[in-house]
C-alpha cells in the first residue's frame, strides 16, 4: 500500500486508502480511495443511506475499518496506538448531525469543557474564549442557556462553536445545514469558508445541499449505494458538467439532464 505523500509533495490532511466499511457482514462501501488536501473544503456526497455518516465515523475513529486504512498526514490513524490517536484527534473538531451538545451543561460550559481539558487557560480566560466562539456563530448572550432551551438550528450552531473551541486544523461537519432556514444555511456556508481562509483549517462536509456543495466545495467524493463504492471524485462543479457517470450528473442536477 503506497504511503500518502511518499513522493515528497506536501502531505495531505487526510488520506483514505482502500477503505472497506461494514456493519457485521453487511458491507456498506468498499475500496474507498481518496485524498483530502490541506485547505480543502471536501464534500462527501451521495444518496440517503449510502454510508456518508458512517464514512465520517471512520475518519474520526468511532468505527473501525473492515479493511484498509485512514492516514492523517503521512501517519496511519487506523493503526496508531490509543494514546497517539487521542493526540491526533486533538487537532480535529466535529459537528454531529444532531448537534450532540452535552445536555447537562450550559452552552458556555459545552464550549469550555475542551478548553479546560486541553489548555492551561484560567477560568476567566476560558469563559471569555467560550463567549467569543458562541458570538462567532451568532449566539452571543446565550451562554447560560441549556441545549434543551434553544431551537434545533441554534443547537447546531452551538455544536459548531464547540467543534471550533480548540481552533482545530480539521473540521468535520455532518449535514451542517439540515434543519436550518435558507439564510442561516447561507450564513453557515460563509462561516465555513471564513474558517478555512482565516485559520487555514481543512474542512470535511457531509451534505446533500446542492447549493452549498457548489458554493463552497473544492473537492468531493461521491458514494454510490447501488455499486457500494465511490464512483467519482473531484471538484463538484466539474463533476456536474463533465462527469462520465450519469448518476453523479443526475444527482448534482437534481435528476434533470
Amino acid at each position, binding site marked *: 500500500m503506497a504511503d500518502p505523500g511518499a513522493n515528497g509533495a506536501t502531505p495531505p490532511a487526510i488520506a483514505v486508502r482502500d477503505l472497506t466499511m461494514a456493519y457485521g457482514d453487511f458491507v456498506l462501501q468498499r475500496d474507498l480511495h481518496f485524498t483530502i488536501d490541506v485547505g480543502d473544503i471536501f464534500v462527501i456526497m451521495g444518496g440517503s443511506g449510502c454510508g456518508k455518516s458512517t464514512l465520517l*465515523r471512520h475518519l474520526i475513529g468511532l468505527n473501525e475499518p473492515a479493511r484498509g486504512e485512514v492516514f492523517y498526514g503521512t501517519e496511519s490513524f487506523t493503526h496508531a496506538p490509543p494514546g497517539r490517536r487521542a493526540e491526533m*484527534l486533538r487537532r480535529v473538531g466535529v459537528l454531529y448531525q*444532531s448537534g*450532540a451538545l*452535552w445536555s447537562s451543561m450550559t452552552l458556555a460550559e459545552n464550549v469550555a*469543557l475542551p478548553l479546560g481539558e486541553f489548555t492551561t487557560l484560567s477560568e476567566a480566560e476560558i469563559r471569555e474564549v467560550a463567549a467569543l466562539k458562541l458570538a462567532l456563530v451568532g449566539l452571543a448572550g446565550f451562554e447560560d442557556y441549556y441545549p434543551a432551551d434553544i431551537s434545533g438550528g441554534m443547537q447546531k450552531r452551538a455544536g459548531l462553536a*464547540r467543534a471550533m473551541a480548540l481552533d482545530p486544523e480539521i473540521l468535520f461537519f455532518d449535514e451542517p445545514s439540515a434543519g436550518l432556514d435558507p439564510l442561516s444555511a447561507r450564513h453557515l456556508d460563509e462561516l465555513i469558508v471564513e474558517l478555512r481562509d482565516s485559520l487555514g483549517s481543512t474542512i470535511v462536509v457531509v451534505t446533500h445541499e446542492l447549493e452549498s456543495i457548489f458554493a463552497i466545495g473544492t473537492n468531493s467524493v461521491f458514494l454510490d449505494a447501488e455499486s457500494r463504492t465511490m464512483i467519482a471524485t473531484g471538484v463538484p462543479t466539474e463533476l456536474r458538467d463533465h462527469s462520465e457517470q450519469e448518476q453523479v450528473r443526475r444527482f448534482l442536477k437534481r435528476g434533470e439532464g
Partner: protein
Amino acid sequence: MSVQSPTGELALTRLPGGTLVVRLAGAWRLDHGLPPLHELRRELREATPARIAFEGEGLTHWDSAVVAFLAGASSIARESGIPIDRSGLPEGLRRLLDLAEAVPEKDDAKDGSNIDDFVHRLGEKAIETHRLFRSDLQFLGHLALTVGRAFRGRARFRGSDLAYLIQQNGFEALPIVTLVTFLLGLILAFVGAIQLQTFGATIFVADLVGVAMVRDMGALITGIIMAGRSGAAFAAQLGSMKVTQEIDALETMSISSMDFLVLPRIAALFLMMPLLTLYGDAMGILGGAFVGVSMLDLSLVEYLFQTADAVSMSHVVGGVFKGAVYGALIAIAGCLRGVQCGRSSSAVGEAATAAVVTGIVAIIVACGVFAFAFYVLGI
C-alpha cells in the same frame, strides 16, 4: 370465481386465450380490509395463465387497500414469470403502482431474520449472549483500569457533576428510603411479635428488629430502592447520551466517558449508600419501636435500650460496608447497561429495565456471599 366485501367485489375470470382477468369493482377501503391475495394465489396454483390483466373500471372508490393488493399481485406474477397488463386500471392507480416499483427492493435490507426456526433462534441467542458477556467483561476491565488511574489522581471529571449526583442520589432519595425502611421495621416487628408473644417475651422484638435491620435488611432494602431509582436513571442517562451522540462527542475529544460519566456515578453511590443505609437502619428501628410502644405495651426507652444492647458495633460496620458494596454494584450495573445501549429511544427503555434487573440480582448475590463469609468469620 368472485369474492364480496361489504362494499366491493373481486372477480377472477379466465378468458379462452389463457388470460386471467382480475376485476375489482365497487368501493374498497382500508377499514374494510384488503382484497384477498390468497384467492389469486389459489387461482394461480390451479393453472398458470398466459397473462394477467387487471381491470378496475367498476371501482367507485379505492385507496391504499387496492394499491397494496395490486402491488402484491404484481410481484407474485413477476415471481412466476407471468406477464401483466394494467391498462384496465384507473390512471391514478397506475401511477401510484409505478411509483411503488420505481426503486427495486433492496435485497439485503431485510437481514434474513425471517428465517424463524428453533435452531436458528437458538444459535442467534447463543451468539448474542456471548457478545454481551464479552462486552460486560470489557467494560469491567476498562473500569478497573480507570479506577486504578483515579487512585493515582489521574482521572478527570467535574467536581460539580459529582456534587450534583450526590444530591440527586443521596439526599433526594431520603423520603422513599424513610418510608420503605420504616415500614420494613414495622413488618419485622409484627412477624416477631406473633411468635414471641406465645412465650411472653415481646421485649425481644427489639432484638429481632434491631439485629435484622442493622446486619442485613437495612442495606439490602436500601440497595433495592436505589437500584430502581439510581440504577435505572444512570442507564437511561448514559443510554440517551449515546442516542444523541453526546458520548461520541466526548470520545472524539479524547475525554473518556469512563472517567467523565461512569466514575462520578459510581463514586456518588459508593459514598451515599453507606449513609443511606445507616439512616435506613435507624428508620427501621423506629418502625419496630412504633409497634412495640403502640401494640406491645413496651416503653420507648425500654425498647431502645434493649435494641442498643442487642446490636453490636460490628453489626453496624458490617451493614454499612455491605451498603457501600451494593452502591458500587448498582452504579456499575446502571452504567454498564447504559453504555451497552443501542442507538434508538426504545433501546433506552430496555437499558433501564436491564439495569434494574442486573442491579438487583447483583446485590442479592452479594448479600448471599456476605452471609456466608460473615458466618465463616463468625461476625
